[in-house]
């Protein structure tokens, strides 16, 4: 029966040979190769839960009076968007789980993408021939960050209103274009009526489409170029070692899919996230409640908030025109960072003069300078992220936020320098040692003799250490 169906299709479409090759494909197994998969599965969860949410969410700022079941807000005037988000949380069965699962999926999506980026960076997986996929990956990250921000801005609660206000001011700060850009993007002076419906279209249509297409291209390139692998016995630049796609790899990957979804569902049901009913409606946004609540954005925006906080109150004027204060920390700094990120594979190739194709991955220690630079970036990111919640930390530690800010201003320079030096040093130390030394295991070299036979020669301890230490050019 099954075979007949197969024949029916193959008569019309062909492709049995392709199908066979596809099923026989080999995928390397390593825990760190699952990070990208986790991101993919989070995206699937986002689309599924997000679609459900669109059935009930009303992207409109039309003013309504709340009369739902959440008593503290009854009789309060709010936007239809905020009310529908409350209704999803309180009136629709399983609505809250879906909403929270959606939010958690976004957080885990970006987290797994970021860690995946780190894995690709530290192992040098972006080297030729995979530079293109690096570019696609960075674009995926940027679009996903943007879409995450748009997503939590839609609910029109007090917290997201603050986020939008900051986004508006950042847009406004761009020299020459700022005011027109901000008015064009937001539909007028903040808070314009069209923000919510406009951002809704971007959030549920445009950006998801962009992400889906890029994801497709990302995976297609992995398919075409085949995955990288770590060096090890039997692994060379020209072969690929791992599980067959069908059914071993497929079963394991499907298992991972269900486990990722399970974790997201667990978080969605058991771990409260973005309780908008606590924040209250944004409305005119200047409600007195605004002043008492600390405002922290979602984690992937934290570093930007931190940069805004640490940047001193400078505002230079050039010929009577000002360079608005947020422009440098919130436009130039991220712009520079992502430009460097995009260019990294090409910069590295230029500095190391290594333009050979690489299918075997580095371990971090194999490229101490690269690892050092990566660690420095992580350190800056960490300090900015901490600075983004300096008021909370200051409150918890009971010190003045002013002192903390001063400390962070120093740390933002010191931490990356230390991280760079230390990491490079450690990597060099590790690089000098043999690869995964196994205590008490004798090592041998197989030597081909002049007559064409083979002979096994035991290695002296020192020789084995020297031969296996960093091979290839060091970055």
């Amino acid at each position: 029966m099954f075979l007949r169906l197969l024949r029916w299709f193959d008569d019309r479409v062909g492709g049995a040979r392709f199908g066979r090759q596809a099923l026989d494909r080999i995928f390397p197994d390593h825990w760190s190769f699952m990070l990208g998969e986790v991101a993919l599965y989070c995206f699937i969860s986002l689309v599924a839960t997000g679609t459900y949410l669109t059935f009930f969410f009303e992207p409109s700022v039309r003013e309504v009076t709340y009369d739902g079941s959440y008593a503290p807000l009854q009789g309060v005037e709010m936007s239809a968007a905020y009310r529908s988000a409350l209704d999803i949380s309180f009136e629709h069965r399983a609505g809250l789980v879906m909403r929270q699962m959606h939010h958690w999926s976004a957080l885990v999506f970006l987290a797994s993408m970021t860690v995946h980026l780190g894995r690709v960076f530290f192992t040098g997986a972006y080297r030729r021939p995979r530079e293109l996929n690096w570019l696609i990956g960075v674009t995926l990250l940027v679009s996903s960050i943007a879409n995450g921000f748009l997503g939590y801005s839609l609910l029109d609660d007090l917290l997201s209103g603050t986020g939008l206000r900051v986004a508006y001011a950042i847009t406004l700060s761009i020299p020459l274009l700022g005011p027109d850009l901000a008015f064009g993007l937001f539909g007028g002076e903040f808070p314009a009526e069209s923000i919510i419906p406009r951002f809704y279209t971007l959030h549920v249509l445009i950006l998801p489409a962009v992400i889906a297409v890029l994801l497709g291209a990302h995976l297609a390139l992995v398919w075409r170029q085949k995955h990288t692998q770590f060096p090890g016995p039997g692994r060379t630049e020209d072969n690929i070692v791992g599980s067959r796609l069908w059914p071993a790899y497929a079963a394991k990957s499907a298992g991972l899919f269900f486990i990722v979804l399970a974790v997201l569902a667990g978080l969605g049901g058991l771990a409260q996230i973005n309780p908008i009913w606590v924040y209250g409606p944004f409305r005119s946004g200047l409600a007195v409640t605004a002043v008492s609540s600390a405002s922290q954005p979602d984690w992937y925006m934290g570093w930007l908030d931190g940069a805004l906080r640490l940047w001193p109150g400078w505002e230079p004027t050039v010929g009577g025109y000002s360079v608005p204060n947020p422009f440098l920390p919130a436009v130039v700094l991220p712009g520079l960072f992502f430009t460097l990120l995009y260019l990294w594979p090409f910069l590295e190739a230029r500095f190391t003069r290594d333009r050979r194709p690489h299918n075997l991955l580095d371990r971090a220690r194999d490229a101490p300078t690269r690892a050092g630079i990566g660690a420095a970036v992580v350190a800056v990111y960490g300090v900015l992220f901490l600075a983004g919640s300096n008021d909370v930390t200051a409150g918890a530690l009971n010190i003045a936020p002013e002192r903390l800010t001063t400390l962070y201003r120093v740390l933002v320079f010191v931490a990356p320098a230390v991280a760079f030096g230390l990491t490079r040093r450690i990597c060099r130390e590790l690089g000098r040692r043999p690869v995964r030394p196994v205590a008490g295991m004798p090592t041998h070299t197989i030597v081909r003799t002049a007559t064409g036979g083979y002979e096994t020669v035991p290695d002296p301890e020192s020789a084995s250490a020297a031969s296996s230490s960093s091979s290839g050019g060091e970055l």
Partner: protein
Amino acid sequence: MISYRGVGVAFALSGLAGLGLAVVYILGGQPQWEGALLMVALGGIGVGLIGWAKQLYGDSEETDQRPVLPSAVEPRVAFATSLERSEEFSRRRGLTGLLAFAAGSLAVAALFPLRSLGPTPGGTLRRTSWRRGSRLVTEGGGEPLRPDSLGRGGIVTVFPEGVEADEDAATVVINVDPAQLGEGTNAEWVIDGNIAYSKICTHVGCPVGLYREPEHSLLCPCHQSTFDVLDGARVVFGPAPRPLPQLPLGVDDEGFLIALGDYPQPVGPSFWNRGR
């Protein structure tokens, strides 16, 4: 590694959790139970599948050759040759020029609808709805403010009467001891200790509203910019680049506080030509 029995248990648990989910849903729903059961239902399948695959294949590995990615020279040249067939089009210079003109003007025309995305900023960034004679009312409406409405150390957020929805116009009125006023404040605009500043932070526009009376400072909750109320809202700390603009206050015939006009400088976050 889990045994076949373990795989069976995982699938069975998953199935039971799925049924439980249906029961919870029918009974009216309960977020924690829904999340937990969904987790077990999905996780059971996941754990079972992985366990099963590991039972069958363990960690066994297979090896395959990688394809050579670059094409050979011959197909590359053939491809380029096929591509170059389009030169038959470019031989007619005049026509290609006209085509470029048509496409170019279409692109320019397509730019115009962009203009409809939002109004031109014009002067809106420099103005608020405060006018000479506007009385000061709180957001909920009600009686306009009088010079004695606030006690010493009191603070209230006000809008111009009749346009309470204008965000830009949000203003804090604070009652301070006039004897302590510093240089930066325009003392003529302070009526019986009532001093009015824009509530929109000059950093990125959060509502400034936390008043610490002992240090007479206004604090922005977003990035901790701190303004000295007695000294023209000078920035004491934080990223805000400028003081909060001070609203000129006066009193009308009926004894209500009024604005003597709009803010002397644009309120809120900076834009490139605000000084012009």
